[in-house]
């Protein structure tokens, strides 16, 4: 779908309501990518994205105007080529899953190192998904107990055995490369599995998925 950009030409926008954090991230990644814009709330983020059409948007989950989800909802339909990477200090499962379901292609926490962040940006820009161990854990939790084949009506609503294996290895701290080696498959295949899990997470209307989010909230 998208052609692979050389890393140093990736155009990135940083959206976060904390100026100090934006400055910090910009300093960390400026050598590797081209930071073309910043925004501090939903409205300014939408404007930056529509004006500059960045390749990747680093998106805070919580921010004035409705949060990262709102930004994706307003921009995503018209700018399908812009990829979103959620970057957050909030570990609240429902927000993380929410932003992924809105259309973000990955989630990393704010204490991620500069090189890891650049790596994640590159991966997202190439159309792949970025799953941290924590996100993989959430996904396994959300799709837990869905293995009974008898009551499955749609393929979207469950993970295949292979996808589950990949998720478990990522949750165990394996990098994609290591997952590939462990399962005797290519890195490309690992990426395919992860993207497919992302798609299921975004498209499944499985009621257990909403109920899961709901249960976590009500506990």
């Amino acid at each position: 779908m998208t052609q692979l950009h050389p890393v140093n030409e990736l155009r990135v926008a940083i959206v976060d309501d904390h100026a100090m954090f934006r400055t910090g991230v910009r300093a960390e990644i400026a050598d590797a990518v081209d930071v073309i814009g910043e925004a501090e709330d939903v409205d300014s983020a939408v404007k930056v994205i529509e004006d500059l059409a960045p390749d990747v948007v680093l998106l805070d989950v919580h921010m004035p105007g409705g949060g990262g989800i709102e930004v994706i909802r307003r921009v995503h339909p018209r700018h399908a080529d812009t990829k979103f990477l959620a970057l957050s200090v909030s570990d609240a499962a429902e927000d993380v899953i929410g932003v992924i379901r809105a259309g973000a292609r990955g989630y990393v926490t704010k204490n991620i190192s500069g090189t890891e962040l650049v790596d994640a940006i590159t991966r997202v820009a190439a159309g792949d998904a970025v799953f941290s161990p924590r996100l993989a854990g959430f996904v396994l939790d959300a799709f837990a107990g869905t293995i009974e084949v008898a009551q499955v009506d749609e393929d979207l609503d469950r993970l295949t055995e292979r996808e589950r294996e990949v998720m478990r290895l990522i949750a165990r701290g394996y990098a994609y490369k290591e997952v590939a080696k462990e399962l005797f498959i290519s890195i490309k295949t690992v990426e395919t599995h992860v993207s497919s899990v992302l798609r299921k997470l975004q498209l499944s209307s499985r009621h257990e998925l909403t109920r899961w989010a709901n249960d976590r909230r009500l506990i």
Partner: protein
Amino acid sequence: MTEYRRALRPADRRLVAGVSAGLADHLGVPVVAVRVAFVVASWFNGAGAIAYLLLWRFMPLATPELAPGLESATRRGLRTSNRLPVREIVQALCLAAVGLGVFVAMQASGRGIAGPVLAPVLIGLVGIAVIWRQFDDASLGRWMRQTSGLAFATRIAAGILLVAVAVVYVITQDRGWSAIADMGVAVLAALVGAALILGPWLFKLVGDLDEERRERVRSQERADVAAHLHDSVLQTLALLQKNPGDAAQVATLARRQERELRSWLYGTDNTIGDRFAAAVRATAVEVEVDHQIPIEAVVVGDAPMDADVTALVRAAREAMVNAAKHAGVDRVDVYAETDGRTAEVFVRDRGAGFDPERIADDRMGVKGSIIGRVERHGGTARIRSTPGEGTEVALTVPIRQGEHVPEEEARP
């Protein structure tokens, strides 16, 4: 755990009152099935509609109780709460239209409710629904900021008007009756109307008092936790100022403080009680603090602790300590999972590694306190290590439900 599960109406996923969504959650069936059931039941003398109204009254509205950070973020508009998917709304509207169509057809065939009764009942129902919905929102107003004065008044007025129209209709239908009967019916109708309108008010008043008491206790608890946290942040900052040169110490302090704040603000992580997930997380924190190395713990599922699971967690602790001490890395990954039948923990580092064949000689800890401990409890331990590439310890124990499990020594 014997507490019975109560059906709740989810405030954030309701079309009319959330009865269908709540029942669907409670029964574990798709929400559309519940809606179909209500519509079909309504064809039979409106039984579905009556059941719906009754459930509306008796199922409490679930106002989500969020972690403080999320609650505050919601209040300040930093996050979007889930909206109902358009598909679901359209689906429900279609369902309602089909339901109404069949209902009208049944009326036309003369097998439905008697005509003179039907119209006022329908109008009355809509009026009641409008008023009740208002009350739901009014009690939600505190967290949804929906205190729109004029709209509120107009909608209540509209609701009352509809109910009144229905009542008047009923009365004027019975023109042929004697004056006394007219009076009687009028008074009765007025009383019923008043009860319908005022009922929720009284209902809500009682509920509010209760809710308020709980809210007060909750906010006091929160204030205590906040005070404790602010104290500990101050302590951490003081410590950081004292040891600015000790990078490892500074990093550990910052990390510990971060985790504490994060779990308080957004915490689903701070599960209290003697559970597997909490124990694994607590153990990871202990080792992290003792050995000044970040340990990333991800836990899926949860189970109560018994002697087997305790042994598993302790063996995992040994594995974490080993990784922290010997691997020479700056991060250890821990993954724990349980499906209720077995519990597993994986401890992984990308460090020095060693030759697993030769652990007998120099690593007594590994043999005794990891492999031995897990195997005594019917589990398995698998250690994979490649010099130069890192180590992964995989531990599994079966969960014996209901059986008597011999107690291990108390937790240190």
